[in-house]
């Protein structure tokens, strides 16, 4: 979170009609685009978000719980999460939104569009979770040892971050960084544990948004075969599969993902 450029994300807290508040990060100029982040939260040097900000006014809500776990107390299930996001879009005046979500954010985007079909005009799902097929299960992400996470998340060796150095003692552990990480994972777990399927397959038919599904061909977390399930279930959907990339395809193939999104959104901009 170090970018000091003019395009850095700014942060605001939005009061919702439910009485809750919602942290929203914003940046860039152009037609609005809602970015729904993955389990890793929002870094303001996120390569894809940074690039999207060149042509869009990016609106990036921080998912409930990431800031403070108490935010989740009144969001009991996936339906209430969809209501929460609809409240937010209503409050922000986004009548017909363009929604782009990665991984867990893709699951939220699809659920939002299925619960409120009129609210989402364009939907981009990047390596989304939310569907389940026993023949190609989503891996148990929460049971991956930390040192093995890069292998699960990235397929392209060029992008795999080195594993964090092992702490020599308890004093060496950055507790606040750990708390932030764990709060994010807990917030995601609320809607993904133990299997990231809350019935989305039964609701996909409701999605009226033009939809683009993007997967890395080598996604080891959510296999790219799920792209076909999303495309089959959503009335107006197409897919782009990027070879050699994994679950972190927005980082591994930023240019290609950006090009696919801009091409998909071009009729809207024109």
């Amino acid at each position, binding site marked *: 979170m170090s970018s000091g450029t003019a395009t850095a994300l700014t942060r605001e807290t939005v009061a919702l009609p439910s009485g809750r508040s919602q942290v929203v990060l914003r940046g860039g100029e152009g037609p609005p685009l809602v970015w729904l982040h993955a389990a890793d939260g929002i870094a303001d040097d996120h390569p894809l978000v940074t690039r999207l900000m060149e042509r869009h006014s990016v609106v990036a809500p921080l998912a409930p719980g990431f800031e403070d*776990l108490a935010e989740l107390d009144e969001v009991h299930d996936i339906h209430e999460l969809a209501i929460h996001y609809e409240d937010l879009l209503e409050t922000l005046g986004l009548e017909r939104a363009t929604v782009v979500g990665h991984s867990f954010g893709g699951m939220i985007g699809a659920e939002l569009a299925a619960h409120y079909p009129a609210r989402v005009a364009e939907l981009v799902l990047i390596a989304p979770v939310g569907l389940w097929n026993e023949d190609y299960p989503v891996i148990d992400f929460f049971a991956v040892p930390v040192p093995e996470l890069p292998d699960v998340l990235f397929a392209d060796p060029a992008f795999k971050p080195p594993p964090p150095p092992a702490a020599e003692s308890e004093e060496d552990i950055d*507790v606040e960084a*750990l*708390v932030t990480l*764990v709060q994010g*994972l807990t917030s995601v*777990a609320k809607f993904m544990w133990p299997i990231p399927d809350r019935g989305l397959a039964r609701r996909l038919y409701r999605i009226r948004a033009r939809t683009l599904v993007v997967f890395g061909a080598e996604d080891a977390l959510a296999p790219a075969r799920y792209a076909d399930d999303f495309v089959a279930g959503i009335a107006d959907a197409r897919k782009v599969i990027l070879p050699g990339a994994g679950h972190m395809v927005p980082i591994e193939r930023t240019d290609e993902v950006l090009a696919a999104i801009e091409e998909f959104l071009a009729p809207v901009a024109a």
Partner: protein
Amino acid sequence: MKFHWFHLMPYPYLPDGFRERYHSVWVDLPVREVYDPVVGHEVYNDYLDELEFADQVGFDGICVNEHHSNGYGLMPSPNLIAASLARRTRSAKLVIMGNSVALYNPPIRVAEEMAMLDVMSGGRVVSGFPVGTPMDTVFCYGENPATLREKYREGVELILRAWKSDKPFPFNGKYTQLRYVNPWPRPIQQPHPPVWIPGGGSVETWDWCAEHDFLYAYLSFFGYQMARKTMDGFWEAVDRHGLERNPYRAGFVQFVGIADSDAEAERLYSEAGLYFFNRCLHLFPPYVNPPGYTTPATMRKGLRSQVKAAAETFASDLTWKDIIERGYIIAGGIDTVLDRLTDVADTLNVGHLMVMLQYGNMPKETVLYNTQRFATEVIPRLRGRFDEWEDHWWPKDTLPELATPAPLTEPAGV
């Protein structure tokens, strides 16, 4: 002081090279490959014999607990074991150190079974309500780690309200909705059996125990020196609530092995001790620490649950020397054992000492020997400690006369 005999009921035939062959003793250790039910028949019966023997030789309580899908402890239902013990024991209290309340739907099931056991045993039940380990709750039983603790607490409050209520009532909870709460039977002990909260060391639990006047039992397997920080935290919470530091508010688990000398103790107990620490605690780290199980407050306090410590501590095999020096097992001649246990009582201020006298693959005759010596040589010497305090966390309505199981004879005819 009171002394309780605690059985984990480990599977004693985990194969050699266990740590290399399997990645975890819990969650996904394949039962068909590792567990032999015919052998298991003997194992359960031996273990019940051992618990019943502890009753005969004068332990105050015999402890059972709940774990799932593992080779570490074979009691997915501690209530079944307690039910069996209710008929064959006479005086020891049945200290049930689990029902992991969030795993019962509805939690009223726990109120029913605890009351059944209390009635069957003549008012001898201590009702433990643990959250449960992450392996048991979130991995084996699929509970959501983000809501586990809240669901658990709501369940405990429902059970207590059911036991205290004069009449049926509706319950509109976040996790349980019941139009009619009216569990039968009700316990002999009124309004309910003593509630013990077995914990691995989370900050919230201390205040919760103090607020509700529950006993806090710290189930550490890593010795009283490591337990000090946790127990100090608990006693500070007791202070904060303006309560007395009554040692009977607290329980602690300690592994013990008694012999004629320290060298003899190694001969008798080292294989079983090494089996426990190197096989039964062979845990896959991610199963120990799923996101949400440990709260931010506990993370900030720098406390790590015992199971997490286990997974991290045992990256390599422990030796008997490690186990003794770190105090994980207090083993030796009687003077060594008395000296160390006195230190445990003083250091932690615990009135309820739960001892593990069986661990790992200890042979039954060794278990009985260890138990007998503890009963005759340790209990009488430490019994009077803390006599100046009254124990409010112990069954007080136990019936003076218990029904006797009838002899197994032919019916006399009518």
